[in-house]
């Protein structure tokens, strides 16, 4: 971006960068803090579910079906079986958060490791691995996940497997790119000249510089995985009834959309809230990273 900027704009940028640190830092942190707060609240709420609601997500109450929100005792209403929506969202949150962290966590570690290795090793190993990565990128991601789940059989676990098999490529690509860049930098050359073992160079010298980029992407990926999990739940290919997974809840509520909008709407709001939390953390991290340039 800087290469084509005129001096006026460059001047502005320089002034802003030099003079704006203090106020900018507060604003940057605000994004990060808000994001972490949202996520923190959600995590705590789902874990503390038994404390927040007397109901079980699967307890049927035939006396109070389809109660609207703000009914006494049921802050978010009930579904067609009289199950409390608030309880279902809280407990369902455990599943969706598990997807966010479990799917993202594994692919992050695996993909980063592969990318680190590939970028560092170079040569034909790098070519082969990157070819495979490019290949996977050619597939429409969701379709591939569905196909894998189709073959393995629809279930939450197989959904995880499908995501693990396909999502590592993004991390591999990012990490490999940064590793290749870092490889030529002085501090790496110095480490090598000192005779450090390869693994040490990779882990202690290259990895710390790559981590920030990977984490930012991981936030975006987490949102994607939640949406993916919810989508599969919605289609009945992941979590299945009577699971309170949010996507499955939305699917369940479709038939009652005319009379009882809250069945399908509220779980979606929950998804959006969690997604926004992750996105804000990602944006905050990105701002932090940019400021340190």
């Amino acid at each position, binding site marked *: 971006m800087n290469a084509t900027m*005129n001096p006026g704009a460059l001047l502005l940028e320089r002034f802003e960068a030099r003079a704006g640190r203090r106020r900018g830092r507060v604003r940057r942190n605000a994004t990060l803090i808000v994001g972490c707060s949202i996520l923190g609240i959600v995590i705590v709420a789902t874990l503390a579910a038994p404390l927040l609601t007397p109901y079980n997500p699967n307890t049927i109450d035939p006396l109070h079906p389809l109660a609207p929100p703000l009914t006494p005792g049921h802050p978010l209403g009930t579904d067609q079986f009289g199950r409390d929506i608030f309880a279902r969202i809280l407990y369902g949150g455990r599943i969706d958060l598990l997807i966010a962290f479990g799917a993202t966590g594994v692919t992050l570690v695996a993909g980063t490791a592969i990318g680190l290795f590939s970028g560092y090793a170079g040569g034909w190993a790098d070519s082969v691995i990157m070819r495979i990565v490019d290949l996977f990128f050619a597939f429409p991601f969701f379709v591939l996940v569905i196909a*894998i789940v189709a073959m393995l059989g629809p279930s939450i676990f197989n959904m995880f497997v499908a995501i693990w098999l396909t999502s590592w490529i993004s991390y591999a690509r990012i990490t490999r790119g940064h590793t290749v860049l870092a490889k030529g930098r002085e501090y790496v050359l110095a480490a090598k000249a000192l005779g450090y073992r390869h693994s040490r160079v990779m882990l202690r010298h290259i990895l710390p510089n790559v981590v920030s980029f990977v984490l930012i992407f991981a936030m975006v990926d987490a949102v994607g995985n939640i949406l993916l999990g919810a989508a599969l739940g919605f289609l009945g290919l992941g979590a299945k009834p009577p699971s309170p997974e949010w996507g499955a809840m939305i699917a369940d509520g479709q038939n009652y959309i005319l009379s009882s909008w809250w069945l399908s709407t509220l779980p979606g709001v929950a998804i959006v809230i969690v997604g926004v939390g992750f996105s804000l953390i990602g944006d905050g991290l990105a701002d932090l990273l940019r400021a340190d340039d």
Partner: protein
Amino acid sequence: MQVIPVLIGITVITFFLLRLIPGDPALQILGQHYTKAGAIQVRHSLGLDRPLWQQYLLFLQHLLQGNLGESITFHQSTRSVIGERLPPTLFLVGYAAIIALVVSIPTGVISALRRGGIFDQTARVTTLVGFAMPSFWLGIILILIFSIHLQLFPVNGYGNTFTQHLDHLFLPSLTIALGFSTIIIRTLRSSTLAVLATDYVDTARIKGISRFAVLRRHVLRNAVVSVVVVFGINLAFLISGTVLIENVFGIPGVGSLLVDSVSTRDYPVVQGVTLVLAFLVVAINLVTDVVHASLDPRVVAE
């Protein structure tokens, strides 16, 4: 060209998809109607009774002949099943792409021109929330509001004539387009900001041409180039979106075909749809590359 290894790779991965099935696929397929003879027949029709490499070559050969196997549920050639369901999906994808461009381009550009203003801030919040929104949920809400309460559009289906298609597919295309737009708006906004700060925009201004001419010939022409790239990259997103949306809106496209086939364990169809959609993505990426090269003379076109 570089495309060929990718195409071959796609066939390899799709081929191995079928091998993922745990246990005996014949058992999965026949279920209750499992008989030994039936199983042998199923295995034979899936080509599972031969060595792996032979299976692959046979698969490839069939592919080149346009043979995608036989659908278990429809008792037709997979190709014809997919062929019937392809047009609605293509219509949907195209429609959604157009709506996405119509929505994103003005929004992204105006956000950049009036940076920090109300429009910009609203747009940024909207894209933040929109990015985290499940498309199928948005679809349901749009149906609720526009089809049921306002009765402006049909609730589902595809229609029979072109105009009916436009009518039925408007809400689903809009749903996909809105999700797609969040990324495009962001990219367009930042690339427009970058272009606005360049020297060549200043050069254009000092010539004494109108502000609109500067915008059209210099700002837009350059900002759009980077959007083309993002558009192409996120096309997979678009294709994925159709799977969910077709389901929500009851559109008889390959997306809903895919989902149905999963529950009926119609493996040849699942495989066939995966293949077709992957090829579609490759084709779209090629088109994107060509468009990019035509817009930016600095790109070395192959």
